[in-house]
């Protein structure tokens, strides 16, 4: 029997070749593409052209990669203000697909793809799955929602292009998810991390042991999560949990992906150019220092997005990855510059609360943060569900758990906040992105 090019982990899928490109070659390719996309956007996107003209910058002024700093930023509001088609840079007959992201307020934002864009998307998703050690022969259960959300179709097309078997189950119906996982022999699953946590709980309820399921990898993304949560998932299920990064504005899933070394996420730099800037001063941050991630699409034709402000806070990891890929890595995105809230003068991110709760052994991460105002002061309450494991039948026992959780949060935040233990299943479960913060503050 002949080995197929992609039927073993040790054999690289040809689409992954750019992941191993020589650095100078990669930077040359990036510059070539940056110049071309700047010209394409300038010629075909009115908003971008107007902003360039205001600054007196011409596409020809981009002579080096550093010159990207001369270009204007794109904000999420720009996509909203030009709703629905204002940023399209090709005639409508070249657009083969539209997706839209559920805007938290008002109108969604619409994104477009040409045939060529779809091919690029497939390619980066193949490279994404390859990072997780997946290949032809794997059975991938795609629990990302199908539809306008980019997660479902993005992962679907990528998994097919990889040569894997796709189960297009979409999100929801947990009992069926688990039954399919076991009966169809699913080896990898794509889902939001919070939904997968829900599945872990559900399997427990159904009395299903993870040993009965051949699952070995999870591709989890579409919301920030933490390393502690990864360890929890891996410990509970015995699978490897990989962090995938992407956003609809840029392409959807497949902008970046963790590899088996589990140290940061590789960015597919030949298609997405990254910068890290200080979110306040816009100054470029050196490797290793945190700032806001800025992404420029280097090859997207239907809707190029130049210097997009992601509001995701991360840093570039200096040095080469042990996996051999030469494309750079960023640290796991655990927070967003706009998730932050301030309580008693302290900047707080939901991810910090999550990390604290997970540090306390045996606590399942079902929690919710409720913000309210009392007498002009913002108050915060963390509600944590009691589980069969943490419940002891004495008042002293329950109070000890309460204290442990409360101390862990105080330790991370430096301030003490109200913590309430609530009955199980009282916090709403999410099928997609988890809603961790309930904001009842008077605006």
């Amino acid at each position, binding site marked *: 029997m002949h080995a197929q090019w992609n039927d073993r982990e040790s054999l690289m899928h040809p689409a992954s070749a750019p992941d191993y490109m020589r650095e100078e070659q990669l930077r040359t390719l990036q510059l070539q593409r940056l110049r071309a996309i700047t010209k394409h956007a300038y010629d075909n996107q009115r908003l971008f052209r107007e902003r360039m003209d205001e600054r007196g910058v011409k596409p020809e002024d981009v002579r080096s990669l550093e010159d990207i700093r001369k270009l204007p930023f794109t904000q999420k509001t720009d996509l909203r203000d030009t709703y629905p088609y204002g940023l399209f840079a090709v005639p409508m007959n070249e657009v083969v697909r539209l997706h839209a992201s559920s805007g938290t307020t008002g109108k969604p934002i619409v994104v477009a793809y040409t045939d060529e864009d779809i091919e690029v998307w497939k390619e980066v998703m193949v490279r994404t799955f390859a990072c997780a050690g997946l290949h032809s022969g794997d059975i991938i259960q795609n629990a990302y929602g199908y539809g306008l959300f980019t997660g479902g179709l993005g992962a679907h097309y990528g998994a097919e292009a990889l040569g894997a078997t796709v189960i297009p189950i979409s999100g929801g119906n947990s009992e069926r998810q688990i039954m399919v996982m076991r009966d169809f022999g699913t080896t990898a699953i794509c889902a939001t991390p919070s939904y997968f946590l829900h599945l872990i709980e559900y399997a427990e309820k159904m009395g299903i042991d993870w040993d009965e399921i051949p699952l070995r990898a999870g591709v989890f993304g579409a919301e920030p999560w933490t390393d502690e949560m990864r360890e929890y998932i891996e410990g509970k299920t015995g699978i490897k949990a990989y962090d995938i990064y992407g956003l609809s504005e840029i392409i959807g899933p497949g902008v970046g992906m963790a590899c088996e070394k589990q140290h940061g996420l590789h960015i597919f730099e030949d298609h997405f150019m990254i910068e890290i800037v200080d979110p306040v001063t816009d100054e470029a941050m050196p490797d290793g220092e945190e700032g806001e991630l800025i992404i420029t699409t280097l090859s997207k034709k239907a809707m190029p997005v130049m210097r997009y402000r992601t509001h995701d806070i991360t840093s570039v990891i200096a040095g080469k990855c042990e996996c051999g890929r030469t494309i750079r890595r960023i640290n796991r995105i655990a927070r967003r510059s706009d998730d932050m809230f301030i309580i008693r003068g302290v900047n707080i991110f939901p991810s910090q609360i999550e990390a604290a709760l997970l540090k306390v052994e045996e606590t399942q991460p079902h929690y919710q943060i409720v913000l309210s105002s009392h007498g002009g002061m913002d108050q915060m309450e963390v509600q944590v569900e*009691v*589980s*069969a494991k943490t*419940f*002891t*039948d*004495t*008042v*002293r026992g*329950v*109070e000890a758990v*309460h204290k442990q959780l409360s101390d862990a949060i105080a330790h991370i935040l430096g301030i003490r906040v109200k913590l*309430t*233990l*609530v*009955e*199980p*299943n*009282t916090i709403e479960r999410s099928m997609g992105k988890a809603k961790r913060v309930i904001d009842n503050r008077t605006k």
Partner: protein
Amino acid sequence: MKLKQLSVFLENKPGRLRELCALLAENQINIITLSLADTEQFGILRLIVKDYDKAKTLLESNGFVAKLTEVIAVELDDQPGGLSEILSIEEASGISVEYMYAFVIKSGEKAVLLFRFDDMDKAVAALQQANLPILDSVELYQRAEG
């Protein structure tokens, strides 16, 4: 000699205890006795029911956290000095009470005390040595049903 008790976590919010009782009633589960420990934030309801496994499954499938724990039941004449005697015996053996509750059985002359001690096995031994009547589950349910 130890009995099964069902402990349930309750959030301190209006109607929660009633909901739990209604659920047991609908399923024909009779509460022999109970105690409620409450703090500002939460409560722990401890129940003695005959069909504790069924009750536990029922409560869990309705979103409660329930746990089976062990207690000791001692039957005494309903007159002064009974509890004091038991506590002296346990104290002499270096055992402490974690919590306790009591009920008077239907015939009226006897009382049953339910205890959770920090060392349950040692507590049973001490009571047996003092010849105090410890009830097993069959005896307890008989007394309760009168």
